[in-house]
């Protein structure tokens, strides 16, 4: 029941994001996108993509390291912390509370990202 509600909520939000994109050709749609399914962040070339990811509560985000160098995914506020991810290794975290979660790679701290949970 709860899962279905989340799906519907996500669908509506997804449609509105599409509408915004079509109407204004705004680039903000890229970071405002809200999708119900589990989400992925790719680590490529020492950066997190997308840098900012907006998701509904309950979403599981999976990070995949596609670099030749190990990276980590560490919440600035201590909400989550991956082990070291070597090439092609993954880390997943489920966001059950709304909020803005900044994170970085503790090995290469110039690499930063954010998950916004709505």
């Amino acid at each position: 029941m709860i899962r279905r509600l989340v799906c519907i909520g996500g669908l509506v939000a997804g449609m509105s994001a599409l509408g915004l994109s079509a109407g204004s050709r705004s680039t903000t749609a890229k970071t405002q996108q809200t999708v119900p399914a589990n989400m992925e962040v790719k680590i490529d070339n020492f950066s997190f993509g997308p840098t900012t990811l907006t998701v509904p509560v309950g979403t599981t985000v999976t990070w995949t390291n596609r670099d030749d160098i190990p990276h980590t995914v560490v919440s600035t506020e201590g909400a989550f912390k991956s082990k070291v991810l070597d090439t092609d290794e993954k880390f997943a975290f489920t966001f059950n509370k709304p909020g803005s979660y900044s994170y970085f790679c503790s090995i290469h701290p110039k690499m930063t990202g954010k998950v916004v949970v709505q």
Partner: protein
Amino acid sequence: MGENKKDELLHDHNHDGVDRRGFLKCMAWAGTGALCVMQGGVLKSYSMSQMSQMGGKAAAGELSFVQISDSHMGFNKAANPDVVGTLKAAVDKINGLSLPPEFILHTGDISHLSKPEEFDTVDQILKSATAKDVFFVPGEHDMLNDDGKQYFDRYGKGAKGAGWYSFEKKGVHFIGLVNVLNLKAGGLGSLGPEQLEWMKNDVKHLKHSTPIVVFAHIPLWSVYPEWGWGTEDSGQALAVLKKFGSVSVLNGHIHQTMQKVEGNVTFHTAASTAFPQPQPGKADSPGPMKVPAEQLKSLLGITDVNYVRGQHALAIVDSTLG
């Protein structure tokens, strides 16, 4: 030596401290072999071709040591599938030096993933070096997952705080610093107040004429902050060393040789023994640089350092593995 003037570079520290043309020329030599000698506050650089004509006098000091860096044991990607082989080649190069070094400095990223077997392999390979003492500082790859516990257990005996320490060799004061711990989001390498305070006390009793060698993993000068190639509080460390006439800073991390002279300080980064990284800003990211196999050894190397007492000189020579 008069006929060699055209290859000789002088950096006059009484002016702005950096002779840009001279600096660039010195950089151009880095990797193919350059000798930089500091004499009475004036840095002189010679090309390798001149060194042979100098009869080895300037190169033959009373203290000789070698710096190696970034062996990344455990790395097995396309940029170098044989980091064991290239570290062995570096040791062969060290063992073949005409002036045998008394010890080796390893400026971090000994391992790639902080695995015990990676450290074991490096220790095993370094045993075949004629220089028996090896002094380490950690790189970020040596402190993964356990905040450095394993590194401290292996290499931290006698070290202070998070692994920093100092020692004397033939009148030269060596300071090993740790700038890879407690890194903040968006930030650079970090020494932290506790280490800076220790350093201040460590050098307090030293004469101003004591040559200082500082070694740490991440550069203590701003090489390219956009890629994290710098240390946020390095300025405070250098301020502590301001009173000394001769300060040499040896770093790794950026997998390429680079040199800069600023006032009384000569900064130098060593090549990796594992894989090269791109020049600052010359690629999308600082990740491993893939080059044709036959070129790889020309981009890896060791750094040979000599101190000549009385001449107040530290000579730094980079040589490639192939």
